[in-house]
Each structure stands twice: as structure tokens, then as C-alpha cells.
């Protein structure tokens, strides 16, 4: 078990008071960054990069530098859930799915439970991913290499399939919402032909519609408008404010071990491929809703609905560092900046990094364990503090949220146009809610639409228009098959029910 030995050596490198202090600082900063939608992990990492430049020149300094930067990353992963749960505003893209059950929980006065569940599952997801990285990284790296365009497309298809059939209400409205998401995703430059699509000559539309702006508007502003319609306060102000809630929630969590396990698997796969943390959280939520015994209650505020997306998002976010280290392919913008950091420090990410800079890599892996433990402790002790934000009077917190939303929308492309867009999305979110248009399909289509289309068309270029490429080998065939099965499962179950001679209930 030479991994254990290497890992212990890694711990020896990472476990110094200096490094532990860096972890604490990094995680705290990361949480702050994760809370504010205007700052992403990429900002935090980028701004500290010059600082680490000097740091990296001391002996053992590269490990300290990567510890600081990766801890910001962990912190941001933890922090994204906080505003999702409290105000329905996802601080980071991967916490959108957390709002589905986290926010209703908070409205019921269970903000503390939702936060505890979110943080703890994040930790579990990360832990599974780190263990995977520790012991089977070479196998995983080879697995990731098998993913070409058709495989990517099949994974995206699977994400969609896991999600459709979820929305109640009018199927026409679901289709309208989802297709609008696809249409918005198509705006801007087309990767495959380099043509401008749906920009109608407007320069502001060149960069396309950003997912974060739509989400801030639809979810955040829309929710404030709905809230105010009923009076000047947020629901859930009676949330308990002590640490007991953590223990109580922990007692409940083991019940959801199946969901956690599935979510960890989905997360790790999506992180390694790399498909990203955002699709991972959506896929995991969709699967949990379909497969869980309490699936019907999802969306009304159940703890399991927080566990599923958070575990997957964190597992994906953590395992995404593996393709970064071994292949030099960043799984997220933050990973991209981290990757740049490695290069600047004189390290070359790639297959040889594990052998050439073993102490660095194992120090990093050890810091993943430690950083997540430190992170969990930091955020859990702050649960009462976070929950108490809900007690701030509406007339104070509402404008602060609106200001944060405006800043968040502006920073995406440094453009005021996006802020106006956010306001429009806000009104749209309000009307959507009142007329029962589902928003989740729109958001999912917006985040995955162009990626799915790109990989489909790349696959078609490669096969010269032959659709059989999606069943070309065992891997892609299995994923596509699973996706189709899931997609048509409502129809299949209904057909089965009819065959058996009783009225079916579609799932």
C-alpha cells in the first residue's frame, strides 16, 4: 500500500502550523467568496496568485501555495449553499439545485437543518472523491481519456433525462421553459462554425446570456417580489439559533445513505470526465427524486433534497482537480486559474506530475483531507450565525440582497447591460412563478444547452453524420441507453400499468 505511505508523507508536509493557518484563512475567505455571487472562486484564486508567486520560491512553498488556493476553492464550494438556502439566491452555479429544497426548508423555519445537511453532505462528497483520488487515480485518469464528443453528449443527455418528467403542471409550459433555456444558450458565437447566432447585430449580446444572471434574476429577485406581495418579511424567521440543530440533523442524515452514495458516484464521475459540478448537482437531484421513496415530496422542503445536489457538487468539484493535475484539463474556471498557478510556479501539470513532484501532489491530496475537515468545522460552527441573518428585518436585508445581486450580475462580464437583464429576469421570475411555468428546466437548458449541442455536433463531424456513433462502444452505448431508458421511463411505466389493466400514475 504505497499510497498510504505517500499519503502519510503528504500529511507530514501539509501538517504544519503555518499550513493549518493558511487553510483556516483560505477556507474562511472561500466561504465569503462563495456567499457573494459577484465573486467566484476564480476571483479569489486569481487575486492571491501573485502572492503565492513569492511563497512558492521558499522550500516546500509550492505546497503551502496550493493549500491556500485550494482551500479558497473548498470554502467557495461550501459557501455557495448559504444564500441558496436562506434567500433562494445561488451564490455559485452549482448551488442552484440546492435551492429547490433548501429554500423551502428555510421557509419552514428549518434553515439550520438545511445548512447543516448541505455542509455535511458537501464534506461527505468531497471525502469520497478524495479517497478515490488517493487510491485509484491512475485508473481514473485512463477512464477520463475514453471520453470523446459522443461520450460527453451521452452524459449531458443523461443529465437531461434525469431531470425531465420532474415538473408538475402543464407539459406545454415545461417545454416552453426548457426550449427558452436552449434558445438563450444558443445566443452568441457558435463553437462549431464560429458564426454569430441570435445576436441580431447587438454588441451586448455577443457574449451570450450568462447562466448566473438568469439565475440571480429568476430565483433571487423573483423570490423577493413574491415575498413582498405577501408582506414585508421573509418566512422562517423563527429558525432555531443554537448548535443543537447540528446534532439533530446529523441524527437524521444516515437515513439518506443511499442518496449520498449515488450522489457521490454521480459527482465523482462528472468531476473526472470533466462534466462539471453544476450538471452533477442537477443530475443527482433528478435521480434522487426519481429513485427515492420520498421522491414525491421533493421540492417542498425535505432534507434529502439538499443532500443529493450538495454531495454531488462537492464530489465533482473535488474530483475535478484530478484531470487538472494529471491531464492539464481544467474542470472549472477556478481550476483553470489554479492550473495557471501551477505553471507560474514552475510545475507542469500532466501525467508526470505524480512521479516528478510526488511530495507536492501528495501534499495537495493530504491538504484536501485537512482542508475539508477545517472547512466543515468552520461552516458548522457558523450555522447559527448564518441562520440568524434571516432575523434581520426585511427592509434592511432586502436592499442588501438587491445590491449584492446587482454587483453579481455586473461582474459576470463587467457590463451594465447584464444588470438590466437581471432586472428583466427578475420580473420574468415573478410572472413565471405566478403562472406556474417551471424555472428549473429553463436553467438546466441554459447551463447545458450549448455544451450538449457542441458535443453532439463534434461527434457528428467525427462520424460524418452517422448517428450510430452514440452506440459505437460499450461506454457510450451504456450511458446513452441509460439516458434513453430514463427519458422514456414515465411512458414505459404507464404502458406497463395499462398492460396490467389499471390506471398508471406517471412518475
Amino acid at each position, binding site marked *: 500500500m504505497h499510497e498510504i505511505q505517500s499519503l502519510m508523507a503528504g500529511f507530514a508536509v501539509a501538517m504544519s502550523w503555518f499550513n493549518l493557518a493558511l487553510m483556516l484563512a483560505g477556507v474562511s475567505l472561500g466561504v*465569503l467568496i462563495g456567499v*457573494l455571487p*459577484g*465573486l467566484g472562486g476564480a*476571483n*479569489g484564486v486569481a*487575486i492571491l496568485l501573485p502572492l503565492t508567486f513569492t511563497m512558492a520560491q521558499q522550500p516546500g512553498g509550492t505546497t503551502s501555495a496550493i493549500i491556500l488556493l485550494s482551500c479558497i476553492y473548498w470554502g467557495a464550494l461550501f459557501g455557495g449553499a448559504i444564500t441558496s438556502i436562506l434567500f433562494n439566491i445561488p451564490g455559485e452555479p452549482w448551488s442552484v439545485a440546492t435551492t429547490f429544497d433548501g429554500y423551502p426548508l428555510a421557509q419552514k423555519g428549518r434553515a439550520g437543518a438545511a445548512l447543516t445537511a448541505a455542509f455535511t453532505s458537501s464534506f461527505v462528497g468531497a471525502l469520497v472523491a478524495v479517497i478515490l483520488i488517493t487510491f485509484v487515480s491512475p485508473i481514473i485518469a485512463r477512464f477520463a481519456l475514453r471520453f470523446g464528443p459522443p461520450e460527453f453528449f451521452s452524459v449531458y443527455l443523461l443529465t437531461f433525462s434525469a431531470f425531465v418528467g420532474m415538473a408538475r403542471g*402543464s407539459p*406545454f*409550459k415545461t*417545454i*416552453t421553459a426548457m*426550449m*427558452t433555456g*436552449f*434558445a438563450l444558450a*444558443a445566443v452568441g458565437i*457558435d463553437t*462549431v*462554425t464560429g*458564426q454569430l*447566432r*441570435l445576436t*441580431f447585430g447587438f454588441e451586448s449580446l455577443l457574449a451570450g446570456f450568462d447562466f448566473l444572471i438568469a439565475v440571480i434574476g429568476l430565483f433571487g*429577485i423573483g423570490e*423577493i*417580489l413574491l415575498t*413582498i*406581495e405577501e408582506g414585508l418579511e421573509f418566512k422562517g424567521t423563527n429558525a432555531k439559533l443554537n448548535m443543537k440543530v447540528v446534532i439533530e440533523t446529523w441524527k437524521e442524515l444516515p437515513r439518506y445513505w443511499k442518496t449520498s452514495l449515488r450522489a457521490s458516484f454521480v459527482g465523482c464521475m462528472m468531476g473526472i470526465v470533466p462534466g462539471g459540478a453544476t450538471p452533477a448537482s442537477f443530475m443527482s437531484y433528478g435521480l434522487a427524486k426519481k429513485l427515492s421513496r420520498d421522491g414525491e415530496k421533493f421540492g417542498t422542503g425535505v432534507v434529502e433534497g439538499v443532500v443529493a445536489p450538495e454531495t454531488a457538487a462537492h464530489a465533482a468539484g473535488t474530483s475535478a482537480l484530478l484531470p487538472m493535475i494529471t491531464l492539464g484539463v481544467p474542470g472549472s474556471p477556478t481550476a483553470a486559474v489554479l492550473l495557471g498557478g501551477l505553471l507560474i510556479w514552475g510545475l507542469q501539470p500532466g501525467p508526470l506530475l505524480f512521479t516528478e513532484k510526488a511530495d507536492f501532489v501528495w501534499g495537495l491530496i493530504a491538504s484536501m483531507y485537512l482542508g475539508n475537515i477545517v472547512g466543515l468545522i468552520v461552516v458548522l460552527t457558523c450555522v447559527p450565525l448564518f441562520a440568524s441573518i434571516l432575523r434581520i*428585518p*426585511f*427592509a*434592511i436585508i*432586502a*436592499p*442588501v440582497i*438587491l*445590491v449584492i445581486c*446587482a*454587483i453579481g450580475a*455586473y*461582474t459576470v462580464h463587467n457590463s*451594465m447591460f447584464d*444588470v*438590466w437583464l437581471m*432586472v428583466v429576469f*427578475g*420580473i420574468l421570475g*415573478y*410572472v413565471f412563478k*405566478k*403562472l406556474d*411555468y417551471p424555472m428549473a428546466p429553463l436553467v438546466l437548458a441554459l447551463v447545458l444547452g450549448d455544451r450538449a449541442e457542441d458535443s*453532439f*455536433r463534434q*461527434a*457528428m*463531424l467525427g462520424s*460524418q*453524420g452517422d448517428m450510430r456513433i452514440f452506440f459505437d462502444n460499450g461506454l457510450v452505448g451504456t450511458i446513452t441507453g441509460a439516458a434513453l431508458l430514463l427519458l422514456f421511463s414515465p411512458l414505459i411505466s404507464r404502458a406497463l400499468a395499462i398492460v396490467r389493466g389499471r390506471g398508471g400514475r406517471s412518475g
Partner: protein
Amino acid sequence: MDEGKPVTSVRVAELAMAGIFLALGALVMWDSRRLGASWGDDGPQAGYFPFYVGLLIVASSAATIFKALNLGERGRAAFVQWGQLRMVLTVMAPTVVYVAMIANPWFSLGIYTSSAIFMAFFMWYLGKYRWTKIVPISLGVVVFFFLMFEVWFKVPLPKGPLEAMIGFT
């Protein structure tokens, strides 16, 4: 004015929204045709998917319109009441003014000054707070954001004359 009186019915709102989507779908289809919306030799062209996306939006909105016309009793229910709309507007109107203050073609106050004014107004008008509370809170929050974005993270946000006076433009 009667606060409980409906501003408009669900039917009208449904029709308006679906109408907007219908137009949007048609617009998407029109632009996709320009790009080429057929299946070429090596897979779909740039406008292929958007075209059918547009088509589906048109079709599904048409179905929604059809359903809205046959809503019956439920269609006559209130989409929003005057009292509710007034509340919504008390948030929406200041927000629009706030965004307009940050940047418009003629003059920009910058995001920080605008935020302070916006928060102060909100707390005064909706919260009925005293100025002794309003000023420290709104200024405190804005100063915190300023330090956070401008000084520590170096994320440049729109700034106006006040920031210029202290050397940030």
C-alpha cells in the same frame, strides 16, 4: 382604490406571456433560417437546433394560448390584486431607479453611491427607520462592499464622482 380588486385576470396574463414566447420563438426561427437550418453532410448546421427549438416554443405557446382561452372559471381569477401590485412596485420601482442611477447614457453615480442611496431610501420608506439607524447601516454595508471588491479583490465596479474624489476611478 380597492386593494383587493384584480389588476388583470389569469387568462389575460397567460395570453400575454404565451404571446411573448410565441414572438420569441418566431424570432429564433427566423434568425436560424439565416444561418442555415438543415442537416448538412457532416451533421447539423449552426441554425439546425435553434430552428427546432424556436419551432417547439411556438408550438407549445400556441397550445398554452389554446388552453388559456378555454380556462373557464379559473381564467377569471385575479392574476394580481392592486394591493399586491402596489407592494411589488414599491420594490421594483426603486430597483429600476437604482440600476438607472448606476449607469445611464448621461450620468453615472457609480454603484457604491447609488447603493447607499438605494438602501437608505428602502429603510426609510419601507422600514420607517430613524436616520440615526439608516445612515450607519447603509454606509457601513457600502464601505464593506467597497473594501471587498475594489480594494481587496480588485474587481472593478462602476464608479462615479464620489469615488473619483478619493482617488478611485
